[in-house]
């Protein structure tokens, strides 16, 4: 089980309180598809992903980004039981979606950068440290049920 210090929990929740889940989710997913274009392979039914403008404006990307980040919010409410929280999603990503868990790490790093671009210097090194730990642990939980 992952240990979270009181400070880490505080840094995570205080940043999360400032997050517009719909905006940041959409942006994070769009950036994933742009920065690591091979990830588009999982979204072949999303329609037009042919250019940065198309990706950023794509309504399915926006909607799915919101879904992904909403699920992240659940993780933040359940920091002491991430494996349990993500158990079903992990099975889904393995058995139905066939996503290489490396992609969870990529999305985590991208999410950190999206948060930073909104929060600026408030995203201190200590803050980044807590968030990199969080995205790493979420990625691990999502990969946990892979077989």
């Amino acid at each position, binding site marked *: 089980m992952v240990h979270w210090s009181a400070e880490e929990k505080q840094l995570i929740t205080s940043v999360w309180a400032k997050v517009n889940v719909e905006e940041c989710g959409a*942006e994070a997913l*769009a*950036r994933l598809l*742009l*920065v690591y274009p091979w990830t588009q392979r999982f979204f072949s039914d999303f329609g037009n992903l042919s250019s*940065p403008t198309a*990706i*950023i404006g794509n309504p399915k990307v926006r909607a799915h980004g919101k879904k992904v980040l909403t699920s992240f919010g659940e993780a933040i409410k359940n920091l002491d039981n991430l494996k349990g929280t993500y158990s079903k999603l992990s099975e889904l990503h393995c058995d139905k979606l066939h996503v290489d868990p490396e992609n969870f790490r990529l999305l985590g*790093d*991208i999410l*950190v*950068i999206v948060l*930073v*671009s*909104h*929060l*600026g*210097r408030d*995203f201190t*090194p*200590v803050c*980044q*440290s807590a968030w*990199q*730990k969080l995205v790493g642990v979420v990625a691990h939980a999502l990969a946990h049920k892979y077989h």
Partner: protein
Amino acid sequence: MLTAEDKKLIQQIWGKLGGAEEEVGADALNRMFHAYPPTKTYFPHFDLSPGSDQIRGHGKKVVAALTTAIKNMDNLSQALSELSNLHAYNLRVDPPCFSLQFLSQCLQVSLATRLGKDYSPEVHSAVDKFMSAVASVLAEKYR
């Protein structure tokens, strides 16, 4: 590979730092040591407290190397040849594909704190590709 557009975006974004490059270097290293403690194992001889002279000095070196790389994006292999030798034979940092991922992430975070929305998805993509190219060159001589 880096497109002409990528190269232009990188040069523009580096230009926007207006003298803050050294600060960015020190900030990136500081963040890396915080978020990825194993990276500290390569600096047992450093004072790693935030704001230390050694971190500032090393940050300045890293940024100078990146600035050289940015001026020579059409020939990274040659421009970074000395550094490539150094990392492979002397420093033997765990192949840059790993460590530079951490430095790349922290450098990008450092840039994004200063540039905010200017750190657009297109810029993000270009910088990520560039750092990946730099990592490849630094790893060329490893074996």
